């Protein structure tokens, strides 16, 4: 779909072979229409516009952000820089999902205005059973550990092929990894599928 918008909308509009302001207009319009493609609702228009704005903002601030990273002592390819890129992208995309999922702009506004309230209830873990998140304290810590593990694997995979490393490791280690994987699939797999938000519109 993104290539369709590129080939049949963005490029016919002039793509990036135009002056700066016209290019910004092309980007914003392409994202706006890609939002509208998802449904005749202002929420989708805002969702598309947000993505267009994110892109333009990141381009406009790219040099400044790189300089800032150098000033604070982190290189452009440092792990810290990489971590902040992942975190900011995740937060911004999730914020845009609010508009995608909400029934209307009023609902979206309600969700946004309540984003920073009620955390004490959400993060309250019952001593006898799961709290509002549906997890006990132990399960929550375990989930955080798994997320951290995933990030570590992701960082390592940038440099090495983990499957190759496991295959070359001593038999005991790679069989232990296989057993752990089978047990993880058996016990942490999804029994009741929850469709990804994108398939629910």
């Amino acid at each position: 779909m993104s290539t369709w918008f590129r080939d049949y909308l963005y490029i016919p509009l002039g793509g990036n072979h135009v002056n700066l302001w016209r290019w910004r207009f092309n980007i914003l319009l392409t994202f706006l229409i890609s939002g509208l493609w998802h449904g005749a609702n202002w929420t989708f228009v805002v969702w598309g516009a947000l993505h267009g704005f994110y892109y333009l903002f990141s381009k406009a601030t790219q040099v400044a952000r790189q300089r800032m990273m150098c000033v604070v002592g982190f290189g452009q390819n440092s792990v810290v820089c990489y971590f902040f890129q992942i975190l900011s992208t995740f937060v911004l995309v999730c914020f845009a999902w609010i508009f995608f999922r909400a029934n209307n702009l009023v609902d979206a506004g309600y969700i946004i205005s309540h984003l920073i309230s009620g955390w004490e209830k959400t993060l309250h873990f019952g001593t006898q059973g799961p709290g509002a998140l549906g997890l006990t304290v132990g399960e929550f810590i375990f989930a955080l550990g798994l997320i951290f593990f995933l990030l570590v694997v992701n960082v390592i995979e940038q440099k090495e092929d983990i499957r190759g490393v496991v295959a070359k490791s001593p038999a005991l280690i790679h069989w232990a990894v296989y057993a752990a994987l089978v047990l993880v699939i058996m016990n942490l797999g999804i029994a009741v599928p929850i469709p990804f938000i994108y398939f629910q519109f």
Partner: protein
Amino acid sequence: MKKFFLKLGLFFVFILSVQMLLPTDKDIPNEIKLLDVSMKLKADIIYFGDSTINWAAKSDVNEEDVGLLQRLLPQSRVAKITHASYQMDVYKAYAEYIVRKGYHPKVVIIPINLRSFSPEWDKQPLWQFEKEKLTLAMKDTFWMRFYKPLGVFKYFEPRMTRFEYEQTKVFDGDTWIGRVRDFDNASYQVFSDDHMKNKLRFRYVSVNFRAPKN
């Protein structure tokens, strides 16, 4: 080759051994957990039901059924085990579980909701409660050790498909009046006397088998 199968066998034995040590009751439906707690607390009356037990009309002076029962019988412990769309099949599974556990409540109440016998309810894929029925059947057995993996590998998924449901024949007594798809479809969103008549017939009079003439 022999060595490979030996290794594979050992691998599976290891997996099964670890699996035996893992907790099993995380995904058990809450209603079943509630029944276990009720039995532990020696409930005298076990009151089963569907959503109609949880809701009372604003005009209903009797309020909620279970609360009323508890007030009328203050000496008894009343346990309410309800879920939207529960039907006889599920109550039977619960009753068998109670018997298997050797528990003897004074009373078990099973309300009869006429609509739950209609094909619209009885055959609805979403209301088959396979998970509840299978969980109750396997609870406290060796197979509970594999409860989560069985769920992950879709053992608790409804057997009835939407297509089978829509193909189900609908009878009014011994007269075949159509298939589910003739009654449960989008056109019934439009109000008309005919639609209302057929809806009532489908929901409250019909069954999914031909009734014997005698």
